[in-house]
């Protein structure tokens, strides 16, 4: 399986994602934001970080960079595109997934382990995964997902919510929401479910001696689904 990770100026989880993808069997290439063409890929990843410093709305500058035209075309033709953290912010700025990401409710950066409940398994990201709940890790300042009531209805009607913040037993309640996101949303799909944006970093959970290993479950499952 071939993957590509896009490096924007200010990306800082690009290497971590490269390490994770390779660990689970992807042949990964790093792609520079100023390139025009994507290498042949089964999966494109927009990594975390602070693209262009996030001095405007997070992700807005990166969403206009040269490579993104190809990424958008790739997504629109059904290609798998995953945006993590800043990558999620870039995805909402391109409009590939609906909604926006606001500043965290308590106005502070949060770095910690959280649990997410998988809401939809009929897609190539979560299909066949045995767990209903995964322990992931978040590290962000703007992860407070928001959309209009009309958008929310559409998202829910199309079953586009990918994961929700929850407790270790899968209970989705406001109390377990780290950033104030609407309906505890931690990640969403586009309508076709080939584009996934999420705040948590599975690439930081790939080794027992790191924050945990549930990222390994995710990546192992992902590569098997793509085969």
């Amino acid at each position, binding site marked *: 399986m071939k993957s590509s990770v896009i490096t924007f*100026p200010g990306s800082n989880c690009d290497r971590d994602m490269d390490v994770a993808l390779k660990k689970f069997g992807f042949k990964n290439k790093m792609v520079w934001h100023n390139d025009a063409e994507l290498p042949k890929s089964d999966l494109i990843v927009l990594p975390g*970080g602070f693209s262009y410093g996030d001095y405007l709305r997070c992700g807005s500058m990166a969403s206009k960079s040269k490579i993104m035209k190809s990424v958008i075309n790739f997504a629109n033709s059904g290609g798998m595109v995953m945006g993590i953290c800043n990558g999620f912010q870039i995805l909402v700025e391109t409009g590939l997934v609906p909604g926006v990401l606001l500043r965290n409710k308590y106005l502070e950066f949060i770095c910690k382990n959280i649990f997410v409940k998988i809401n939809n398994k009929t897609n190539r990201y979560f299909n066949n995964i045995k767990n209903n709940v995964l322990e992931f890790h978040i590290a962000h300042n703007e992860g407070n997902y928001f959309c209009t009531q009309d958008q929310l209805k559409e998202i829910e009607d199309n079953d586009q919510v990918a994961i929700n913040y929850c407790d270790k037993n899968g209970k989705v309640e406001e109390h377990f929401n780290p950033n104030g996101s609407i309906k505890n949303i931690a990640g969403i799909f586009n309508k076709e479910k080939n584009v996934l944006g999420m705040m948590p970093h599975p690439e930081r959970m*790939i080794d027992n001696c790191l924050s945990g290993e549930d990222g390994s479950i995710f990546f192992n499952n992902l590569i098997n689904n793509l085969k």
Partner: protein
Amino acid sequence: MIVNEQVAIDHGLKKDEYAKICELLKRTPNITELGIFSAMWNEHCSYKSSRLHLKKLPTKGKKVIQGPGENAGVIDIEDNDAIVFKIESHNHPSFIEPYQGAATGVGGIMRDVFTMGARPIANLNSIHFGSPQHKKTKNLLRGVVHGIGGYGNCMGVPTVAGQTSFDSSYNGNILVNAMTLGLVKKDKIFYSKAAGLDKPVIYVGSKTGRDGIHGASMASASFDDKIEEKKPTVQVGDPFTEKLLLEACLELMAGDSIIAIQDMGAAGLTSSSIEMASKGNLGIEINLNKVPCRESKMTPYEIMLSESQERMLIVLENGKEKQAKKIFDKWNLDFAVIGKTTNSKKIQLYFDEEMVADIPVNTLVENSPMYDRKWKKAKLPKKNKIKKEELKNFKIIDVLKKILANPNICSKEWIWQQYDHTVMGDTIQKPGGDAGVVRVHGTNKAVAASVDSSAVYCWAHPLTGGKQVVCESFRNLIAVGAKPIAITNCLNFGSPENEENMGEFVECVQGIGEASEYLKFPVVSGNVSFYNQTKDEGIKPTPAIGGVGLIKDYNKMITMDFKEINNVVLVIGKTEGHLDQTLFARNILDEKNGPPPEINLFNEKNNGETLLKLIESNLIKSAHDVSLGGIVTAVAKMCIKGKKGINLNKPKYLINEMEYFFGEDQGRYIIEVGKKDLKKVTDILNKNAVHFDELGTINENELYIDDKTKVTIDELISSNTKWLSDYMSN
């Protein structure tokens, strides 16, 4: 502007210093030259009050590749890998403008590290605030934490450990010390020594603006009522540009075009160009019209003294300019050839085709003032006679809960959760333990780092305090299973012109020197910050020690959480029950006098090295050093982390229970041992003449001493975790 003695005094120079400048130049300096002298001769850049004493610190060792004098120290961690590290203060700017002050402190120290070719892999910090009740404390704390996070998070370097304290002596002068570790191949270390004639001098990074002018001079003076006016001397950070600068520099460093490289930190273009020339015994000629400026009509004076961030100065090999420029173009950074090396041994500046400065380099460096300041030796205070009857009025559990909720002991999760501590995917011990630990990417090795200070002990007796901080750093590394290698120090003191403050400095440095010599734990880098005072009110002497150690196999790393029910818990090291200057004495008994606990370097070394042997033999399940709050506080923290309890034995020998449980005798660790390994462990301890007491066994969920003296771990957790978040949300 005509330069005279008054202008020099306004620049922070003394009368005799100005006279010396005129004598060295054999003429009156012009305003640009005077600015350069004031920047190079201030305390912050010249170390004029401290140089004499710093020379006495042990700086060499088998593992030391580079000691003090470069951008940062470098140590060998085998297999051609080396760690570059340093700690630096950003106290004054952080008090004036906490967010930017702290942010640029973090940015500055990371630049020091990657200037040497190393990719930063871990950040740490030591931050000290005034009393929680002081009106400024909350905002300063919030600003500093946001600033540290804002910069480090954006750079993508994990903040893995730190220290936060509160004490009213910091009411008018907070401390913000930032430390960075970087990883480099031993044969790819870059230095700041220029070499060769007619080599191009290159400016890269951000443009030069009017921010931070005279920042270093501001940091070399006490605060007064007009502190708000000093805001323009604080630099403004741009972590995004620094991230680009990091990647561009490392890309350029992969080749062989760099002769010397130096970041523009304190005193900006002035100190960077002069240091490179001085180390290479060369001259440098700069055309200031070529310096990329953010604002129009900047004068030579402003260009030379600006402390705009995220800038580097490089001496390149001839003919490599194009290739280098391509890299900086790719990263959208300014790149300008601004001058060349010469054999004049002078710093010569041109602006609008006129020479605006012409100063022999040695007058700025070797001939800079050095003072043997008067200092007062501190007496060892007499021991307090705390009455045993008085101690009987206290209940262990009540005191323990109070101590766990004390601002200097309580959980600092509110702080470190705002720092990205897991980016780079190698953090194997997060903040909240004895030391932060990161793997050396792609290897079985890991590096542990900790930062410590004990202002109360240093204040009570500077010599003992100085030793103690080094020992505590040593212990924190050993407690995670790392072999201590070297330290960096950030020496935060009041005014060197005050004999008592100067005495504190001299004796703390002596203590640091003695301990690091004995423990073979040399000082490889550091920084001095004097004038931490508002008007005449100085801070408690606060040397911060950043220690670095190596874990050869990271699977052997130890954490402090209790692991398994029925395992046995021991305390290593002798408990004498020293109460003076302890958290218990100061905060519960309200007794502020007396000497700090004594340091026995033989025991420190022997206890530590023996524990390391036990860890290497896989005999230790968890470990934690005993520090503030004594045995019971250390044990309680291990319970909290592991969500387990302990049946705690009472002392078997004569001393009082309160002294036993809350005394802060040094050289001690708490360790957890499996029942089947107990004999092996005690045999090794006995063989090495290490004193130990059996403290008890681990249980499910209760700290239990007797039926009247017990508490659930949940209750301890709530005492420990609530204070800071409650304080910050009110």
